[in-house]
């Protein structure tokens, strides 16, 4: 018994010595994670770091008391392939171009002040018939619509020769035109130069950006009234936000209205630019951006005041439309009473043989 006790004690003592030694060695030579050094990254705590996300408010108001005018909007819907039909097309315009909501602030201001807003959506059926052989050359679909309008707002640049002629005579007869373009409008399609030449305006390649002072993105540049503008278009406008804007220009007869703020540069040169972003002649306003009209952007800076001024410009024209029976629309039961129902209901018998109409699809 005593012998067994001795053996057991020896076993326990030996085991305890070995495991205890191992534990002590492990503890002494422990190779675990050391306490991480304290690091204070003040740059993550900067009060100015978080951008102000308040969307803002817009109040678009018009000053003009002109009688009811008809403003035609061309959102740039292609006349072929997936063309929108009826009201549905009107609401969405059937494509990724300028949608109804994108021009709502401007359209609403016009409507609220008693003006008509008409939307040009080409009818592919009519387009095909118009392209038929023979017959005398008549107005295009656009020409027919312009004949009823006092002012014209377009987001498109690829008009064919006949349409350009119609736009030119529209301006000559006192109609006011706003062309809203984009930096990439001429990037991969032809046609913009012809419209520019017709209206006496120019656009440059590239976009304007400002790294130092901008509206939440370097491409969303601030524009301020040009030095010598003094134009009614800049009334109440200290600064406007133009997202993705391209420089525009005009002839000597025209004037610069909005120019990018100091520190702005041009993408193609990476050099400072003072080239204007919004110019006007007597009857034409050219703006190097179309996004500034959208509801979200109307709420930025003084865009609402600018949009109101542009609405005033549209309705302050000297034009008296000849109407559907006028010189440009010799025949056809064009529905005159439908400023909000273009496209489908507009069904004049088109004059056959409009060969150039086919070009409208190819730009």
């Amino acid at each position, binding site marked *: 018994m005593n012998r067994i006790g001795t053996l057991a004690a020896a076993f326990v003592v030996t085991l305890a010595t070995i495991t205890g030694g191992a534990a002590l060695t492990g503890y002494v030579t422990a*190779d*675990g*994670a*050391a306490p*991480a*050094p304290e*690091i204070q*990254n*003040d*740059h*993550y705590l*900067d009060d100015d*770091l*978080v*951008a*102000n*996300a*308040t*969307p*803002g408010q817009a109040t678009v108001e018009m000053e003009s008391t002109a009688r009811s005018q008809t403003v035609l909007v061309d959102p*740039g819907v292609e006349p072929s392939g997936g063309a929108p039909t009826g009201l549905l097309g009107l609401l969405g315009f059937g494509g*990724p*171009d*300028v949608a109804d*909501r994108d021009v709502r602030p401007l359209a609403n201001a016009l409507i609220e002040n008693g003006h008509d807003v008409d939307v040009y959506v080409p009818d592919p059926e009519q387009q095909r018939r118009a392209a038929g052989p023979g017959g005398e050359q008549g107005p295009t679909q656009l020409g027919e619509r312009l004949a009823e309008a006092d002012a014209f707002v377009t*987001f498109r640049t690829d008009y064919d020769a006949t349409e350009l002629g119609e736009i030119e005579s529209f301006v000559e007869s006192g109609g006011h035109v706003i062309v809203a373009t*984009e*930096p*990439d*409008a001429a*990037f*991969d*399609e032809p046609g913009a130069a012809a419209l520019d030449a017709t209206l006496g305006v120019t656009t440059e390649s590239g*976009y304007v950006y400002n*790294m*130092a002072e901008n*509206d*939440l*993105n*370097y*491409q*969303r540049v601030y524009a301020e009234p040009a030095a010598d503008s003094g134009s009614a278009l800049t009334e109440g406008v200290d600064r406007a936000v133009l*997202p*993705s804007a391209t420089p525009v220009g005009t002839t000597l007869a025209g004037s610069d209205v909005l120019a990018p703020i100091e520190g702005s540069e041009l993408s193609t040169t990476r050099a400072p630019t003072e080239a204007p972003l919004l110019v006007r002649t007597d009857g034409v306003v050219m703006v190097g951006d*179309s*996004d500034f009209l*959208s*509801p*979200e952007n109307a*709420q*930025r800076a003084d865009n609402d005041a600018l949009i109101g001024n542009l609405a005033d410009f549209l309705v302050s024209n000297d034009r008296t439309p000849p109407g559907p029976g006028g010189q440009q629309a010799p025949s056809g039961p064009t529905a005159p009473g439908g400023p909000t129902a273009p496209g489908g209901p507009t069904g004049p018998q088109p004059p056959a043989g409009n060969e150039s109409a086919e070009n409208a699809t190819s730009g």
Partner: protein
Amino acid sequence: MSTKKPSTALTSRQQLAAVVLAAAVVGAVLAPSVYAATNDPDDTVAVVEIEGPVNTALADDVESELADVRANDSVGAVVLKMDTPGGAPVASERMYKAVQRTSEQMTVIASVQSISASGGYYAMAPADEIYVLPTSTVGSIGLNAPAPRSSAPTQGPSGPDKRGGNEIQTWAQQQTLADTFVSAMMAERGEEFQMPREEVAKADVYLGTEAVKNGFADEIGSLNEAVHAAATAENLGEYRVDTRETGPDTGFPFLLRTDAQVVAIHANDPGYGDVKPMGLSYVHAPAVPHVDAVERFSESDLAVDRGGAAAGSGATGNESARLAGGVDA
């Protein structure tokens, strides 16, 4: 007295021989260990590889390796072997902080191989020095993101921002994300950059030869030279190099970009679970191939054989238009 019968006891000479033999045997067994213990230097330069797209798996490994390095007394210096176009913002930040901690404790030198841009640059910025090869690419300090667009109203979600915020709110968030990156880089290397913050925020990339002049890098040198410089800085004398691989060893994910965004692909023949969109990323987009280009080369009959080369160029134009945030033509 002396009985002359043969003795079984060893003579003293025999005893000596036995002891010498036993010592020789034990010595032979112990010699390799003793040799290793004396020949192998105590000091180690750990080379931690940061290669491929920056993602969670890579950040996990880099954090873990650097924590191990910090806890290991035998590691005297670290070299980061960089070869990445960037990737996920959070993974970039995690590596940035891990490198920052390590750099507090020992010399850390980044050695750029072909590229360390965007999120990759973020990760290595706290290093004491950045080594580049003459044609390495560094920079691209900024956010890659699509233009926020308003979406049609939907019914059902519990709040107006549940399906994505207002357009302006998204712009603000993206700008904050970009500014966070730029601010961190200005804090780390603002004194080295030979340009103002606005110029840094343009997110340009620079070749090594230019980077050592404008402060985006410090020295022209290879990985070996970076290792030697790290060891010299810590007075290691003799040292060994311990290379630590990181990230998944399957070669995935790889990055592709579509017209709108960058996606991470986690399988060669990807299913739904293998494609992870990266809406907002710290990635140098030109270093990421467009999905159209990859698809063209993976087709059994190449597009050029069918006269379909136009498909690719069309996609490029489209992309430019969308990236510009403008109206699609």
